[in-house]
C-alpha cells in the first residue's frame, strides 16, 4: 500500500479541501487527518457513524507534594523549561512541564511524583470497508508529534485491502509535519501564489529533503496572482520538483464546503483542475 501525504508549509492553502476531493475521486478506503492541532477533515467527510474515541496519554507530568517538599529549590534551579515557580510553595505548571523528569530524579526529599496526563484524543471511524483515523490535541498541549504518530499507527492497525491511503497533514515544518512524513511514499505540497506561499514552499521542500521524501507541487487559487504562479512553476522546474498542476480560485468551493457538499458536485473549472491534479499525482505516485 502506498501513502500520499498532503502538506503545504503555509496554512490555509487548501490542503483539506484537496484531500477531501482526492478521497472522493479515489473512493479511498483508508484516510487520515494528521493536523491534530486543528483537525478539519472530519467536518466534511460526512461520516454517519460516531467514531471510536480513545484518550491519548502523552508523557507523564510531574507534581510536588508540599508536605514533603523541604524547599531546597534544587528542582526550580535545574528546570530548563521554567515550569517550576515559587509561590507560597514550589509548584509545577503542567502546561510548561516538558515531562523530562529531572525534578523527580534529583529531589532529595522524594517529594516529586509523576502523574498520567491526557494530551489528546484519537478518533477512528469505521464504515463498511472505509477507515478514517484522526485526533485532536487538547488545548495548549505539546506532544503533537507523538499524537500524529498515533493517528498513523491507528490507520496501520486497521488496514483494509487497498492500494492507497490519503493523509491530510498540518501546516508548518516542525514536529507534527516531520512525524507525518515518516513512511509516506510521496508528499503533495499545495501552495498558493504569494511571496509567503513561495517562501513556505521552499522551507517545506528543504524539510522533505532532509528526510529524503519524494515531493510534488500543485498551486491552488493560481489565478489570484499569475506572476507569482509563474515564479512557483519556474522554482519547481529549476529544482526538478514534479509540478502536477494549477487550480483556479473559485468562491463556489467555500460555499460548497459550508453547505456540506462535495467541491466536485458542480462542474466548474476548479473542479476539473482538481481532477487533473489528482490524476497526475496518482500517475507519479503509482509508477
Amino acid at each position, binding site marked *: 500500500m502506498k501513502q500520499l501525504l498532503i502538506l503545504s508549509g503555509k496554512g490555509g492553502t487548501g490542503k483539506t479541501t484537496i484531500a477531501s476531493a482526492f478521497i472522493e475521486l479515489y473512493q479511498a478506503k483508508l484516510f487520515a487527518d494528521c493536523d491534530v492541532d486543528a483537525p478539519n477533515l472530519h467536518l466534511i467527510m460526512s461520516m454517519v457513524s460516531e467514531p471510536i474515541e480513545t484518550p491519548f496519554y502523552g508523557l507523564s507530568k510531574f507534581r510536588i507534594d508540599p508536605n514533603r517538599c523541604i524547599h531546597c529549590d534544587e528542582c526550580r534551579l535545574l528546570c530548563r523549561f521554567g515550569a517550576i515557580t515559587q509561590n507560597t510553595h514550589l509548584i509545577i505548571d503542567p502546561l510548561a512541564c516538558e515531562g523530562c523528569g529531572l525534578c523527580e530524579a534529583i529531589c532529595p526529599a522524594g517529594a516529586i511524583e509523576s502523574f498520567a496526563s491526557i494530551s489528546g484524543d484519537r478518533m477512528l471511524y469505521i464504515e463498511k470497508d472505509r477507515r478514517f483515523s484522526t485526533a485532536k490535541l487538547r488545548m*495548549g498541549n505539546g506532544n503533537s508529534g507523538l499524537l500524529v504518530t498515533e493517528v498513523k499507527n491507528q490507520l496501520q492497525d486497521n488496514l483494509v485491502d487497498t492500494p492507497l491511503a490519503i493523509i491530510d497533514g498540518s501546516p508548518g515544518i516542525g514536529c507534527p509535519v516531520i512525524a507525518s512524513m515518516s513512511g509516506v511514499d510521496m508528499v503533495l505540497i499545495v501552495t498558493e501564489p504569494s511571496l509567503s506561499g513561495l517562501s513556505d514552499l521552499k522551507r517545506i521542500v528543504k524539510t522533505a529533503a532532509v528526510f529524503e521524501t519524494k515531493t510534488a507541487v500543485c498551486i491552488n487559487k493560481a489565478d489570484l496572482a499569475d506572476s507569482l504562479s509563474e515564479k512557483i512553476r519556474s522554482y519547481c522546474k529549476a529544482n526538478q520538483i514534479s509540478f502536477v498542476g494549477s487550480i483556479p480560485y473559485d468562491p463556489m468551493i467555500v460555499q460548497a464546503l459550508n453547505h456540506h457538499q462535495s467541491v466536485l458536485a458542480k462542474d466548474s473549472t476548479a473542479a476539473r483542475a482538481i481532477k487533473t491534479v489528482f490524476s497526475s499525482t496518482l500517475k507519479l505516485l503509482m509508477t
Partner: protein
Amino acid sequence: MTIAVLSGKGGTGKTVIAVNLASVSTHAVYIDCDVEEPNGHLFFRPIPKSSVEVALKIPVVDNLRCTGCRKCVDFCRFNALAFIQNRLLVFSDLCHACGGCVVLCPEKALSEREMPIGNISYGISENVEVITGNLQPGKVSGVPIIRQMVENFYTNKEIPIYIDCPPGSSCSVMESIKPADYCLIIAESSVFGCHDLKMVHELVVELHKPFGIVLNKCFNEENPSEQYCLENGLPILAKIPFDRELNKWNANGLIAVKQSPDYHQLFQDLVTKIQAEATK
C-alpha cells in the same frame, strides 16, 4: 500594550492583519512567532540590524569516562540516548535539552555542546521594529526560539507590540500569547474557519485573556464564524470583505495601508477599537 494575533486555522490572514496594524501606528514592534513559516519580513523588508543564533544544549559523551551504567539511558524519556555496542550514542534530534543526563551521570562523562536550531533577527522598517524568529528546516521544535523572543522583546510597555502567532492551539501558541494583554482572533467565513475559531476562543477564555474577533475574507453569504460570534456574544471588531485587489497586494508583499487610504482608515479604526476593548 502587547497584542497577540492568532487564529487556530492557518491562512486566515494573521500576518497581513498584524503587519497592517503595526504599520498604521506611529511606532510599533512586530514580532513574528510563526517561526516555522515566518512571513512578516516579506512585507516589511526590514533593514537588518542584528541577529542571534538560538541553540539547544545537547549532551556530548566522553567515552573514556563512560562506564556504561546506563543511568542516563534509563532517565531519558525522549529516547535520545542509547547504549549500543559498548558505546553511548546521542540522537540529537530527539533531545529536548533538559540537561538531566549531564546532571545525573555519576562519572561526569557527559558535557554539553550547542546545537543551533535557528535564529532571531532584528531589523527596522520605517516606523516598525521587526523581530523575526526562524526555525531551521529539519529541526523539530521552534518553542525555544519563541521562548527567547518572549523573554527578550516583550518588555517595552510604552509602544504597541504586535505578535504574529503560529497556527493551531498547541504549546507554541500558548508560549506566544503568554505575555499578551489582548488577543485578536482572525476568523475566516468557512466551516473550517468557524471550527478553529471555537477552538481558539476556548483557549483565550481558559487563559483569561481579553479578546476580540476580526472576520476576514467575508462574502455576501452566510458566515458560520459570524453566526458563532453573534450566538455567543463575542465582540466583532471588524469585518473585512474578500477583495481581489487586497489579495494581490498581500501576494506581492505590499502593505495595504500604504496602498489605499480606505485600508489605512480600516486599520486605524481597528487599532482604536482594540485599545478601547483592551482597557475596558
